[in-house]
C-alpha cells in the first residue's frame, strides 16, 4: 500500500475514529476521577461499561424514551460504583481487588440484563440519539456533534462539582487521607461517592457506544480500564504542561481518548494485525506510566552526582 493510499484511507476513517474517541473520552474522564483524583485504580469499569450499554439497549428495546434509557444506564453504573465502594470501605477489601470482584460479578449481571451475550437495536426501525451511520451528516444526531456537546456538558458539571465543599472533600481524600480525617472529612464516604460518580460516567459512555454501534455486548468493556488509562496518560503527556485548570485537564483526557483512537485507526489502516491491538495498548500505557518513575530516578541520580562532585 502506498503512502498516498494510506493517508486517503485514514482520512476516510477519521470521523468514525474521532466519534469513538469522544465516546471513550467520557469513559476516560471517569477513570481519571478514580485514578488521579481518588488515587484508586478501579477495575469495576470493565464491567460497568458493558452494564451501561446493556441497560441502555434493553430500555430502548422496551420502548423507553431515549434520554430515560441513558439515565437508567447512568444509574446502573452508579450502583456498580456503590458496590465496589462498599466492598472496599465496609468490608475492608483492597480497592483493586474490590474492583476485580465487581467486574467479575458484573459479567453475570450483564448477561442477565440482556438475557444473552449480545443485544442489538436496529437503527432502521428505532430512533437513536446517535449512530455510526450518521457520522457524516450535519445534524445533532451526528455522533461527533452530539458527543462533543455531551462531553463539554459533562466537564462543565464535573468542574462545578469538584469546586463545591463536597467535591473539595473528595479531592482532599485522594490527596491525603490523614489530613482529610483530621479536618473532619469522612474519607470512606468520599471514596464511595467518587467511585459512584466515576462508574456512572463509565456506564454513560457505554450507553453512547451501544447506540453508536447499534448493539451492546457482554464483552464490550473488556480492557476498558487500559483504554481509559491510555487516554489519561496520552492527554497528560501532550497537554499536561499547558492545561493546568481542572476543566482543561478533563478536556485533555477527552482529547487523549480521541488521539488514542486515531492512532488505533492508523495502525489498522496500515494493515497491522488487529489482534495485536490490546498488546499495543497495554504497552503504550505501561511505558507512559513508567516515564514519571524513570524521570524521578534519573533526577535523583543526577542530584547525587552533583552532590558528591
Amino acid at each position, binding site marked *: 500500500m502506498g503512502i498516498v493510499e494510506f493517508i486517503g484511507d485514514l482520512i476516510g476513517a477519521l470521523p468514525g475514529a474521532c466519534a469513538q474517541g469522544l465516546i471513550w473520552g467520557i469513559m476516560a474522564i471517569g477513570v481519571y476521577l478514580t485514578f488521579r483524583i481518588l488515587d484508586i485504580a478501579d477495575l469495576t469499569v470493565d464491567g460497568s461499561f458493558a452494564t451501561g450499554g446493556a441497560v441502555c439497549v434493553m430500555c430502548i428495546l422496551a420502548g423507553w424514551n431515549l434520554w430515560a434509557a441513558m439515565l437508567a444506564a447512568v444509574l446502573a453504573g452508579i450502583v456498580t460504583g456503590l458496590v465496589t465502594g462498599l466492598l472496599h470501605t465496609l468490608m475492608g477489601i483492597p480497592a483493586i481487588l474490590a474492583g476485580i470482584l465487581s467486574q467479575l460479578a458484573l459479567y453475570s449481571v450483564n448477561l442477565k440484563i440482556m438475557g444473552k451475550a449480545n443485544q442489538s437495536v436496529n437503527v432502521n426501525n428505532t430512533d437513536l440519539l446517535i449512530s455510526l451511520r450518521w457520522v457524516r451528516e450535519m445534524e445533532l444526531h451526528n455522533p461527533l456533534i452530539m458527543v462533543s456537546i455531551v462531553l463539554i456538558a459533562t466537564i462543565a458539571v464535573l468542574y462545578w*462539582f469538584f*469546586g*463545591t*465543599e*463536597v*467535591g*473539595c*472533600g473528595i*479531592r*482532599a481524600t485522594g*490527596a*491525603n487521607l*490523614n*489530613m*482529610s*480525617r*483530621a*479536618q*473532619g*472529612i*469522612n*474519607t470512606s464516604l468520599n471514596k464511595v461517592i467518587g467511585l459512584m460518580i466515576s462508574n456512572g460516567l463509565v456506564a454513560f459512555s457505554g450507553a453512547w457506544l451501544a447506540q453508536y454501534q447499534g448493539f451492546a455486548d457482554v464483552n464490550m468493556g473488556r480492557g476498558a480500564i487500559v483504554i481509559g488509562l491510555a487516554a489519561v496518560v496520552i492527554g497528560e503527556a501532550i497537554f499536561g504542561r499547558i492545561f493546568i485548570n481542572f476543566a482543561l485537564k478533563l478536556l485533555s483526557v477527552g482529547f487523549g481518548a480521541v488521539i488514542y483512537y486515531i492512532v488505533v485507526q492508523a495502525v489498522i489502516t496500515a494493515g497491522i494485525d488487529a489482534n495485536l491491538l490490546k498488546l499495543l495498548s497495554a504497552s503504550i500505557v505501561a511505558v507512559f506510566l513508567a516515564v514519571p518513575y524513570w524521570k524521578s530516578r534519573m533526577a535523583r541520580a543526577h542530584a547525587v552526582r552533583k552532590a558528591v562532585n
Partner: protein
Amino acid sequence: MLEIREVYKVFNPGTVNEKVALNGLSLSLKEGDFVTVIGGNGAGKSTMLNMVAGVCPVDNGRIYIDGEDVTHLPEHKRAKYLGRVFQDPMTGTAATMQIDENLALASRRGLLRTLKPGITARERAGYKELLKVLDLGLENRLTAKVGLLSGGQRQALTLLMATLKKPKLLLLDEHTAALDPKTARKVLDLTEQIVNRDHLTTIMITHNMSDALRVGNRLIMMNNGKIVLDVSGEEKARLTTADLLEKFKISAGEELANDRILLS
C-alpha cells in the same frame, strides 16, 4: 476540657511483638492548660494523642472532650473538637491542592460539607491576611500547590489550619522535630503566639527538654504507657533539665535513654 480515664492500648496482642503502649493512662486537662509531654522511645506519647484523636480505638477506658464521651466516635467526627499538627510536615496538608484550598478545607472542619462553593473570594482575602501573620511570604502564593512549600512552611500552614476554626483541644505531636533548629524555633514561637492569643487548651509532645520546660504551664513525663511525672505552675517554672533527668531516673528506675532527646 479533656479527660482520659484508665485507658489501655496493646499493640499486636498475643504475638511476640506484643507491646503495651498505654497502661491504664489517666489524665485530666483544665481549660486553657498548655501541657508539654516528654518521655523515652515507646513511652506512649504519640499513642496517647492518637487515642484522643480517634486514629485507632482504645482497648479499654474512656475519653471525654468537654464533657462529651468521645470514646467510640470515629476520627472524622472527633475532628470538630480537635486541631492537630503532626511530626511529618507532609501529613498535615494536601500536597496536590492549593494553599487557599487547604485553608478552605480546614475552615469547614466540623461543619456539614454541602454543594456550596468550596472556597469563596471573601475567604481568599481573609486567608491572605492570616498568612501575613506567618511572615513566610505565603500570602502572595495563595494559589500555589502546597507540595511546592518547604517543610517549615508546610508545618506553619498546618498549624494555621489546625487553629483556623478554634479547636477545643490542640494536639501537637513533635511538630517541630523534623525541622531545622531555626525553623523549629520559628514554628514554636508561632505556636505559643496562637495558643496564647486564642487561649487554646494544648498538648504538645516534644523531644526538646528545654522547650518542654520553657513552654506551657504544665509538664508531664511518660514511661511505659503511664504518666510518671506531672508538674505545673510554680513547680514547673523552677524545674531544670537536670531535675527532669533525675526525676525520670527515680520514677522509671533507669536513665532517660533516648538518642533523640535534646538536652540543651
